[in-house]
């Protein structure tokens, strides 16, 4: 039999002014199951809470209702008070007779009647509360970081520096990502590699970081605190332990004309190669599609002969490795929108009119970065690809693919305004007398010292900006004829350029969708990964224990990606600060006896917290299929309850019995 205590608060005059506290107290005392009904000026005060604690003990209460303010204000307070007195904190309910009653209804009679109804409902609810204990989930305090660009590096180092092990998985043979290929960075024009490579080395040498380059995530099992990730280490044909990175192999390799991925196709590499001199690990990899020996199975083998460390292994195969982790950070970065005609997505049509792929001197922004980079194929001299001449006039076109609902992507790629300004400056610095023309839609330069930077490009370095689009590029007599509009001047503009640089839209990296599905992370219509809450949980995802940072989430620049990476690392460390995970017990559970295993809840759960399961006898014999809630993942929204036709899903704290008895208590 229920023994409910109801504690009605005056909140000074706040409640008492419009609600007849005495009448409420007396009427409530007559409600079935109510053991005691008292009121006090300030229930949340120490003496108020003391009364609650006393009554819990003296009346051996089985539940309590505090009729006062919003539960968002004081539910935790009163739960704590109950716990102190030995009552399970989840046997506490509140009736909001202040915000929802006395503050908004000033007719005393009506407010009192409503307060009584609100308390009546809470009494019915608390009668059916269950004792709950926080859910404890074991925790592996190791992190897995996917993606070894600047964001992944930052996140991995932060976590490793805090004393936890990190496994860092990178698809390419070296970490470093896009940033390793950049020339200089805005708005300071400091050298990209100078900033990044020490961090890369740190990763390579960190005792807490286990590096998996040339590797990809094969599959993910488990859940927050307890992920099991299978990693595919692609065959490298070079023994990472034996290899010293001396370079004898790639120096001797006769297969030279392979387009360098790192140089964005602007330069060549060997069939056995390291992507760039500062690569981490500084160990080569054999391109199995280029290598004569690997293609034919016999012959060549020059590298093997030259290698004194005996590190070449043509029989190498892909290996699967399993890593345990409590948290996963996704930092898979971006790729550029392919502006050529062929598209992976029917909604995109490319920018054939700009002649990319047709005219050698029409290049994209990352290619330009390599042209300007001191480590690039031209050693930092800006020579155009077609004939190696130094271009005297360069046109930069912004928003290629971005902010274009018709044939591109609706969003702003965010960094192009800044890097185009940078490009013009670098070009002007290196090419005295050269002309830099920029076609733009808007200049978006929000950020510390950003707008100043753009103004510098225009005002000091003399880049010419035209607000307008380019309609077509043609080639005549070795010149690129760029036809566009200057909408501010209201006139068409035609520029004879030696080279054109396209600021192409950023898109999420290839393969991110397959990865997102393995991790149960959502993504938006453009394929960028979805954060759990756009404001309050920007690096969390709906998959508990999976965090995101960098350009896999949205276009962003380096400082932003790094800040987000540290945030993701911080969130991970908050998790790792405990021995085990504790979670709110107000979550869903499935009555496996009645579950018909239609799995509508599995489809509907926003957190993929419900899984297909089997009920077995103690001896392991199949009894039936059922849905089952993963306590480590359920966030307690209750969507499954409403979706379940047989009501085999139930939500603690808001059970069907509680809700129905509340509604029914309003029945006259």
């Amino acid at each position, binding site marked *: 039999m229920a023994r409910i205590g109801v504690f009605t608060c005056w909140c000074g005059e706040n409640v008492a002014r419009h609600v007849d506290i005495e009448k409420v107290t007396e009427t409530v005392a007559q409600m079935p199951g109510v053991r005691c009904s008292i009121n006090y000026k300030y229930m949340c005060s120490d003496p108020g809470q003391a009364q609650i604690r006393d009554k819990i003990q003296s009346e051996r209460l089985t539940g309590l209702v505090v009729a006062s303010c*919003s539960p968002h204000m004081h539910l935790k307070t009163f739960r704590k008070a109950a716990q102190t007195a030995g009552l399970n904190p989840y046997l506490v309910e509140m009736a909001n007779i202040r*915000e929802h009653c006395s503050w908004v209804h000033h007719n005393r009679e009506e407010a009192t009647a409503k307060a009584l109804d609100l308390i009546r409902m809470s009494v019915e609810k608390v009668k059916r509360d269950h004792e709950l204990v926080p859910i404890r989930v074991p925790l592996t305090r190791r992190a897995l970081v996917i993606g070894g660009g600047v964001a992944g590096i930052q996140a991995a180092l932060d976590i490793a520096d805090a004393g936890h092990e990190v496994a860092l998985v990178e698809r390419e043979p070296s970490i470093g990502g896009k940033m390793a290929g950049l020339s200089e960075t805005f708005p300071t024009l400091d050298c990209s590699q100078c900033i990044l490579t020490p961090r890369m080395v740190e990763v390579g040498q960190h005792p807490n970081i286990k590096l998996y380059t040339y590797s990809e995530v094969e599959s993910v099992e488990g859940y927050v605190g307890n992920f099991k990730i299978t990693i595919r280490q692609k065959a490298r044909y070079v023994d990472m332990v034996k290899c010293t990175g001396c370079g004898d192999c790639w120096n001797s390799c006769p297969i030279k004309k392979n387009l360098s991925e790192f140089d964005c196709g602007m330069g060549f590499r060997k069939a056995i190669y390291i992507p760039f001199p500062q690569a981490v690990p500084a160990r080569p990899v054999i391109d199995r599609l280029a290598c004569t020996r690997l293609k034919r199975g016999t012959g060549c083998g020059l590298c093997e002969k030259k290698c004194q460390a005996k590190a070449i292994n043509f029989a190498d195969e892909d290996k699967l490795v399993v890593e345990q982790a409590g948290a996963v950070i996704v930092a898979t970065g971006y790729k550029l929108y392919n502006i050529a005609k062929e598209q992976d997505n029917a909604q995109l049509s490319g920018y054939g009119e700009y002649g990319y792929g047709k005219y050698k001197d029409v290049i994209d922004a990352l290619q330009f970065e390599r042209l300007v980079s001191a480590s690039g194929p031209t050693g930092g001299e800006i020579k155009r690809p077609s004939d190696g001449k130094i271009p005297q006039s360069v046109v930069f076109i912004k928003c290629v693919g971005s902010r274009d609902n018709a044939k591109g992507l609706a969003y702003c790629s965010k960094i192009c305004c800044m890097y185009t300004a940078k490009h013009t400056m670098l070009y002007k610095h290196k090419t005295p007398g050269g002309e830099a023309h920029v076609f733009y839609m808007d200049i978006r330069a929000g950020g510390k010292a950003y707008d100043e930077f753009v103004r510098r490009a225009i005002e000091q370095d003399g880049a010419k900006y035209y607000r307008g689009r380019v309609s077509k590029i043609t080639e005549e007599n070795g010149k690129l004829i760029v036809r566009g509009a200057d909408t501010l001047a209201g006139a068409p503009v035609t520029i004879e350029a030696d080279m054109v640089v396209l600021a192409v839209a950023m898109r999420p990296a290839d393969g991110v969708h397959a990865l997102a599905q393995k991790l149960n992370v*959502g993504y938006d219509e453009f394929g960028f990964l979805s954060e759990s809450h756009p404001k309050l949980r920007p690096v969390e995802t709906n998959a508990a224990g999976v965090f995101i940072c960098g350009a896999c989430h949205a276009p962003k620049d380096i400082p932003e990606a790094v800040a987000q990476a540290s945030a993701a690392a911080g969130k991970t460390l908050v998790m790792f600060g405990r021995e085990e995970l504790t979670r709110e017990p107000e979550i869903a559970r499935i009555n496996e006896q009645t579950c018909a295993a239609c799995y509508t809840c599995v489809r509907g759960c926003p957190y993929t917290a419900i899984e297909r399961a089997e009920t077995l006898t103690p001896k392991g014999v199949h009894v039936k299929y059922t849905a089952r809630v993963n306590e480590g993942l359920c966030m307690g929204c209750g969507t499954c309850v*409403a979706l379940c036709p047989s009501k085999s899903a139930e939500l603690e704290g808001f059970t069907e019995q509680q809700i129905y008895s509340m509604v029914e208590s309003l029945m006259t």
Partner: protein
Amino acid sequence: MNETNRFEPRIIAYVCNWCTYLGADLAGTNRLEYPANVRIIRFPCTGRIDFNLIVKAFEAGADAVLVSGCHPGDCHYTAGNYHARRRWMLFRQLLDTLGIDLNRIHFTWISAAEGRKWAQVVTGITEQTRQMGPYTAYREIARASA
């Protein structure tokens, strides 16, 4: 209830914890007065609110029912309100076929910042329901005698 003895509608509101409940809290904090006819039942999310509860509200004698939660995109649980929206899209059609008065079933998105909207919505529903009078049709159905 008061001297004019006018009909006072009974309104049951099913609201989510994170948006509309807080919106109603804000109406309180801002002391926005509105009619006392509404009884709020708090859920974690509109996704938890089953269609049976609308039926139950009418069985319990409600003259109008309000279901309210977070605006699209704002759900604390990201998608509960989308599930709810889809549920009500279909359920309304069933109720309409049954001849149940759709003017007595209201759906709104009210955010934690929209205290004023909460007060306005409740005032509006109360007034509209007062005009329509008690929902005698369903009360007759719900009179539980054989």
